[in-house]
């Protein structure tokens, strides 16, 4: 998949990258981080202009995130009809509002595997869109220019850093899942 996408990027440039990150932000399982690193290397080699490509990628990924937030927002009514009156729903909503900023920011560039669920939850739990947009923009700017910058720095050796960052991203996702399990297990043991 990533080989095919890389070929299309060197053929058609920033618009294809924009489409990839836009669709990826809505949940398609594209290796977007590795692609952004590769694009940084293409910019260094002079195939793409870094500012146009960076801007297109940033605008498209933020649009994709906003759309997945909107999807969450528009399913809010049926979700509320099902869970709205429960105490747990209110608790979950208040927990997300407390940790939402951190969740949105960190899932943009560190735990990217959780970005789409966080967008949907943010929309469903009525997390303020302005706040979501601001931290989404900040996090995605770090993702695009940070990882793209690494690709630019390493040039033709981008595959080395790409492999490391891709695996590290999955490792952090695993750690988050494990941590969630441990926290729930501790609560379980305490309640016994």
């Amino acid at each position, binding site marked *: 998949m990533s*080989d*095919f996408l*890389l*070929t299309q990027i*060197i*053929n058609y440039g920033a618009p294809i990258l924009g489409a990839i990150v836009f669709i990826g932000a809505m949940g398609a399982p594209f290796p977007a981080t590795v692609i952004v690193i590769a694009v940084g290397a293409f910019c*260094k*080699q*002079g*195939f793409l202009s870094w500012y146009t490509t960076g801007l297109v990628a940033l605008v498209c990924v933020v649009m994709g995130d906003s759309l997945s937030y909107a999807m969450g927002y528009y399913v809010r009514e049926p979700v509320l009809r099902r869970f709205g009156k429960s105490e747990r729903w209110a608790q979950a909503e208040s927990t997300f509002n407390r940790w939402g900023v951190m969740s949105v920011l960190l899932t943009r560039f560190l735990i990217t595997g959780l970005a789409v669920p966080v967008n949907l939850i943010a929309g469903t739990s009525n997390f303020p869109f302005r706040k979501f947009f601001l931290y989404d923009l900040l996090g995605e700017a770090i993702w695009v220019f940070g990882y793209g910058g690494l690709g630019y*720095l*390493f*040039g*033709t*050796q981008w595959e*080395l*850093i790409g*492999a*490391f960052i*891709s*695996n*590290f991203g*999955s*490792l952090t*996702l*695993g*750690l*988050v*899942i*494990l*941590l*969630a*399990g*441990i926290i*729930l*297990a501790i*609560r*379980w043991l305490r*309640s*016994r």
Partner: protein
Amino acid sequence: MNTSSNPRKRALVIGLILVGSIIVGIFGLRTIRAFREFRGHRPPPPSAAEEIETDVSLIRDWMTIPYISKMYLVPPRILFKALEIPEHKNKEKSLRQLNEEYYPQAKGIVLEKVKATILANPPQPMPTVPDTPVVP
């Protein structure tokens, strides 16, 4: 949450720990391996940006002939001629696609031929188009 009284919640806790541990195990090892490979390399110095790439081991089968041509400063017509493939309609195809289309019986032959051609042809300055028209 009283998990002890709810088998579904207990299964969730065990599932999270199990799935989390598996992911941490697999990707932890892969991260360490990738870090070891990456540790020995440093970003090339800024001056190297202007240098011509000569390491053919960096060629991959997702690359296209025009891309490789620009990367190694070898004119595309030389590469197409070496592959015995017409340039027309093949500029946007990857080496893998060219291989599947023109050499379906010989897997990887296009990649090897491109590498050999680049090694046999030292980099040549590519014709550049001036930014502004030249006034005679």
